[in-house]
């Protein structure tokens, strides 16, 4: 399953964002940020204590089941009195959740987390970025491993000169994507794919911001189209 991977903002930045705001309501989420221990009930409680110690009045908190879901509006309704007393909402979810909350409430929302990437759980407590949704998928030629994402430079024609013992030049803890792709293609006896000179990529497959509409949208149920 894919997950939105987050990390708490540096305390200094949070203090700055909350500067001058004395009454705060905190929102967490029961999905990705609970798994990554960045915005579940435990972290929300800890944040509540921390901010209280800094002299903030915490008007309340809620851990939404799935903050990015369209049901978030209704879930927040249940806390509307506590939210009403707050000057700002501190949202400890990924940025999808922050934006969903922002659309529902006429208050300043402050993200407590930085959203790093959409990742895949590759081991217990281990999440890796494997696709950046680039709009023109090329992994049919690379053995199903994405060089656009897994190669630090997004190179599509083989390794750079910085690759070292199968690791990436920026971090001995990161595998060089092109060593992985080479090994995979070799195993599949498909190295010819790697020998083909790839044309410059289309970086505008879906110009930012991405937008997608199902033509028969009108016939779909309203909840799926909100």
């Amino acid at each position, binding site marked *: 399953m894919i997950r939105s991977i987050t990390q708490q903002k540096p305390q200094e930045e949070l203090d700055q964002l909350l500067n001058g705001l004395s009454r705060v309501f905190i929102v967490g989420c029961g999905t990705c940020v609970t798994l990554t221990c960045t915005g579940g009930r435990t972290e929300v409680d800890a944040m509540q204590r921390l901010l209280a110690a800094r002299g903030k009045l915490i008007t309340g908190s809620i851990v939404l089941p799935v903050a990015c879901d369209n049901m978030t509006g209704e879930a927040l309704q249940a806390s509307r009195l506590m939210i009403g007393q707050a000057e700002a909402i501190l949202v400890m979810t990924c940025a999808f959740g922050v934006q969903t909350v922002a659309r529902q409430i006429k208050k300043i929302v402050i993200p407590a987390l930085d959203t790093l990437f959409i990742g895949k759980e590759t081991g217990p407590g281990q999440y890796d970025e494997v696709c950046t949704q680039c709009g023109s998928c090329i992994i049919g030629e690379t053995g199903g491993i994405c060089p656009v994402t897994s190669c*630090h*430079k*997004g*190179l*599509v*024609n*083989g*390794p*750079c*000169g*910085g*690759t*070292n*013992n*199968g690791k990436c*030049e*920026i971090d001995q803890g990161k595998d060089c994507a*092109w*060593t992985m*792709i*080479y090994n995979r293609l*070799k195993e599949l006896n498909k*190295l010819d794919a*790697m*020998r083909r*000179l*790839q*044309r*410059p*990529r289309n*970086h505008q497959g879906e110009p930012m911001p991405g937008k997608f509409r199902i033509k028969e949208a009108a016939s779909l149920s309203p909840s799926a189209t909100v």
Partner: protein
Amino acid sequence: MVSSFKKVLESGKFVVTSEIAPPKGTNLDRMKHHIELLRDKVDALNVTDHQSSVMRFPSLGGAILVKEMGGEPILQMTCRDRNRLALQADLLCAASRGVNNVLCLTGDSVILGDHKEAKAVFDLDSSQLLAAIRRLEKGKDLGGNDLDGGVSFCAGAIVTPEANPIEPQLIKFEKKVEAGAEFIQTQAVYDLDGFKKFMEYARNFDVKILAGIILLTSAAMARFMNKNVAGVNVPQALIDEMAGAPKGKAIQKGIEIAGRMISRIRNERMCDGVHIMAIGKEELVPEIMTAAGLI
């Protein structure tokens, strides 16, 4: 117009190139001094492009300066900082100013440099940049549009003969040749027997190979490179030789080693020439060439 460096490459002569680094700032005195010192001794001078992702005076400006001062520049171009519009534009500018040799590089990561939060580009890679050059020469840009006024370049690239694993590196090398590389400057080589094996392979391709020579300045520097520079492997015997140099004479020893390696490469006709890098010690290049019996 055929570049004079291209003529040298095709002449069969043992080719010698070196490189200079533009300053951080507008004080060009030191770079001019290096150009004056080297322009008549080497066949061409690389001008580095924000080497190690450290912001400097541009390689294009440096290459134009080499040209104006009567030298033969090789413009280094990385794909890190410019997208395909900017790269093509700079190639047009280079051509218009008589800078007709280009070395195409992917470029180091932004993270390794001195502007660590900058956006990295990598719209093209080194092989695609080579292909772009060949396309511009045919009078078309990458968008398929006609050019008013043509370009002609002698284009090159790099390879790391001691990369580990080596096969992906060789596949990339072959793609660079296919994309139009006429010459290759290698990452620094120190183990010449290993380099010979690489050359047995590389000889199968229609491309000139210039062996990379980096001046060793101390045993510690050699160890540092072994540990930190991808694909550089200084054999223990050379490290010992450097360590055994009398106090204050390590650089002399490094010059001697570089000279010895160059003359062996030349005498055994291992490859088509050498590319001498004396990073930060450019004024020693003539001494290295003397030690090698080149001048």
